[in-house]
């Protein structure tokens, strides 16, 4: 509430540098030069690092995407947008695109909903709930490889826990990782499981920060629990919801570890997500031109979705 006022004040008091009186020019100029020099000295190292590790690779990737690369990864034939056209008409790539969307949407939605559900549960004042809080946030400390080993064991066709359970209850045994639809399900389950710890913790924190008087006031007014959740809790944690949804979306677009360890993109490319395809094309096939093109497309897509999310959610979040 104070911010806009001070802004206005600083604007009215602000004097453009061009209006300096001639008398002070020499001194100010020297001073300014020195300040710039200082700025450069201190910003220099980080600018250098950014240039080497961020700007250059970005531009290089864009550059490579217009080329065919030879067996040692050197760009040889300039082909303009040919890489882009061939990708967007390739059924395999479109298939990956579709798989990625399914994966991203499923993972994001499930992570958000389940994370919120767990956080809501853990916020209840029930005896022994702190034990569950620890359990719920447990996957925070689990590395991708450990998670993959755990879920590979769960989904194992001969000795897997899930299929043994299915046997026990005379349910049909599912070949989790070798049937396209189930493989996607399995990967989504594992990813959501991985994500839950972090999401839970963030949501839990957000729920704790909603003043209890909001609920007390509503309770006195005879507002139902359900209405309280949708009209108090959700709006109050909407900034967190927004933050988590963006993080989850971007992270799931970038999913790699679990895919590599559990399905390697298979079966039948069912779990061959865009990032995994980039990895395959660049680091297995050495096809850097195509991989660069895929990277550019992915980057654009993530930027686009983040932008949309900002546009759509910004209004609802900004209170």
């Amino acid at each position, binding site marked *: 509430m104070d911010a806009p006022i001070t802004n206005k004040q600083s604007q009215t008091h602000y004097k453009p540098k061009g209006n300096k009186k001639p008398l002070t020019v020499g001194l100010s100029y020297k001073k300014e030069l020195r300040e710039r020099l200082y700025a450069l000295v201190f910003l220099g190292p980080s600018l250098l690092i950014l240039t080497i590790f961020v700007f250059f690779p970005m531009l290089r990737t864009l550059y490579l995407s217009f080329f065919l690369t030879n*067996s*040692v990864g050197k760009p040889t*034939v300039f082909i303009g947008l040919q890489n882009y056209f061939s990708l967007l008409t390739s059924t395999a790539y479109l298939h990956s695109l579709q798989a990625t969307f399914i994966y991203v949407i499923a993972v994001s939605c499930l992570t958000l909903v389940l994370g919120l559900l767990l956080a809501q549960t853990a916020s209840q004042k029930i005896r022994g709930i702190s034990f569950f809080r620890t359990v719920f946030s447990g996957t925070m400390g689990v590395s991708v490889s450990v998670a993959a080993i755990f879920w590979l064991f769960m989904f194992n066709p*001969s000795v897997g826990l899930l299929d043994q359970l299915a046997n026990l209850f005379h349910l049909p045994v599912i070949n989790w990782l070798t049937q396209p639809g189930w493989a996607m399900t399995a990967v989504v389950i594992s990813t959501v499981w991985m994500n839950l710890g972090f999401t839970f913790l963030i949501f839990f924190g957000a729920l704790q920060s909603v003043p209890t008087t909001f609920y007390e006031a509503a309770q006195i007014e005879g507002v139902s629990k359900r209405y309280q959740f949708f009209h108090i809790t959700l709006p109050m944690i909407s900034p967190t919801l927004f933050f988590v949804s963006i993080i989850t979306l971007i992270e799931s677009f970038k999913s790699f570890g679990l895919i590599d360890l559990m399905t*390697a993109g*298979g*079966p039948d490319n069912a779990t061959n997500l865009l990032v995994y395809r980039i990895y395959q094309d660049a680091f*297995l096939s050495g096809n850097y031109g195509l991989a660069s093109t895929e990277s550019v497309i992915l980057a654009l897509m993530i930027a686009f979705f983040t932008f949309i999310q900002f546009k759509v959610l910004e209004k609802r979040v900004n209170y």
Partner: protein
Amino acid sequence: MKKIKNFRYRHLLLLFSLCAVILSALTGCTSAKADSRIQITFWHEMTGPAQVQLTKFVKEFNQSQHKYTVVPQFEGNYNEAVQKILNTHGTSASPAVFQSMDISTSQIYSSGYTTPVQKFITADNYDVSKISAVARAFYSKNGQQLSMPFNTSQPVLYYNATLLKKYGITPPPVDPSYSDITRVAQQLYERSGKKVKGLSVEIYGWLFEQFLANAGESLANNQDGHAGTPTAVNFTGTAATTTMKWIQENIKHGSFMNYGSGTSASANEMAGFLSGKLGMFLQSSADISQLTAGMKDQLGITYYPHPDGQKSNGVSIGGASLWISNDKSTTVQRGAWEFIKYLMKSQNQAAWQAATGYLALNKDSQNEPVLQKLYQKTPAAKIPSQQLARTTPNNTNSGIFMQGLIQERTITQTAMEQIYNGKNVTSALQDAEKQMNSYVQTTNKANK
């Protein structure tokens, strides 16, 4: 004010001196230790028992002479190593001698980063006839040896002999046809009350290539690339179609177990076989040491199966070979060659097979006591070597000399996944072929 300034400069000075210390420490690491020996950097991708044995060879080689010191460095998996080799070439970080996988042969060759070992073979008048012809053929071009085959395996069929005996099933013959395998698989599945699956063929491009090789069919034109750069592939010939239909038939019957693809697939397959839930599977001969170590039942091995109504053409090999980089001095290259020669010695090859399951490539190795002892204990262990020995190399069983074989494997594996999940064989293979052909065209264009 002055004080503040000084204070600031002092901090800057401190920062710079810190940087200087770090830099000098880093460069200090690379400044070589005083050593009169010539250092031969050796990159490899071996893990487990193979890494142990390889390190032992290196140590023994270093002790056996005083001119060279071989320094082994592990570089991760095959795929990663290829990229590292290509990307470090010409820098001080690059290796003098390196191990690179079978299907990277054409890529490494066309990079122009290596000295063909043929140069040293000719100079030394080294007798290569002792080395397995099939293995040599895989890594040669126009009669010239590009690299030396090293860890080499052949695909074979493993079966659980004890399990077959238990259900009174006649084991498959040593050179089985598809229908021989179908019979055993179905009998095992039915007689075990559907508790034991008969057969598994991992979704693995290498196995797909071997089906074609064993049927005597080229996978790529220009005679699998041995007569020139391939411009098109053949996934839809009789061999591929027949084989895939055979597998689909077994899947429909229920006796076939699909473990999928990737590293977890082979691990699951092995686990299934060792726990008696799977009767037969096709896999690399390199698995033999793991199987003999982990299995309580008697292990049976046959040659790779071939289509009905024809003789087997013989399978090619898998594994990796040793290359010599051309960005090092001639003395270093010489040292690399001496190390390769050392590895190919009869007793070393025998020890290699006994320790790892990879095949001994020196023909004399079969008479070494260490292998004789192994065969006595596990007679079936002889089968892969016999399969290797009996095969006459020709253009269809000497590997495929083509770039983009990793892509080929990805694509054929996808087709196999589709077929295993019930898709029409012909259309799956046609899709794959079309995809690969367009890839081949692009690759050729980029490498012109």
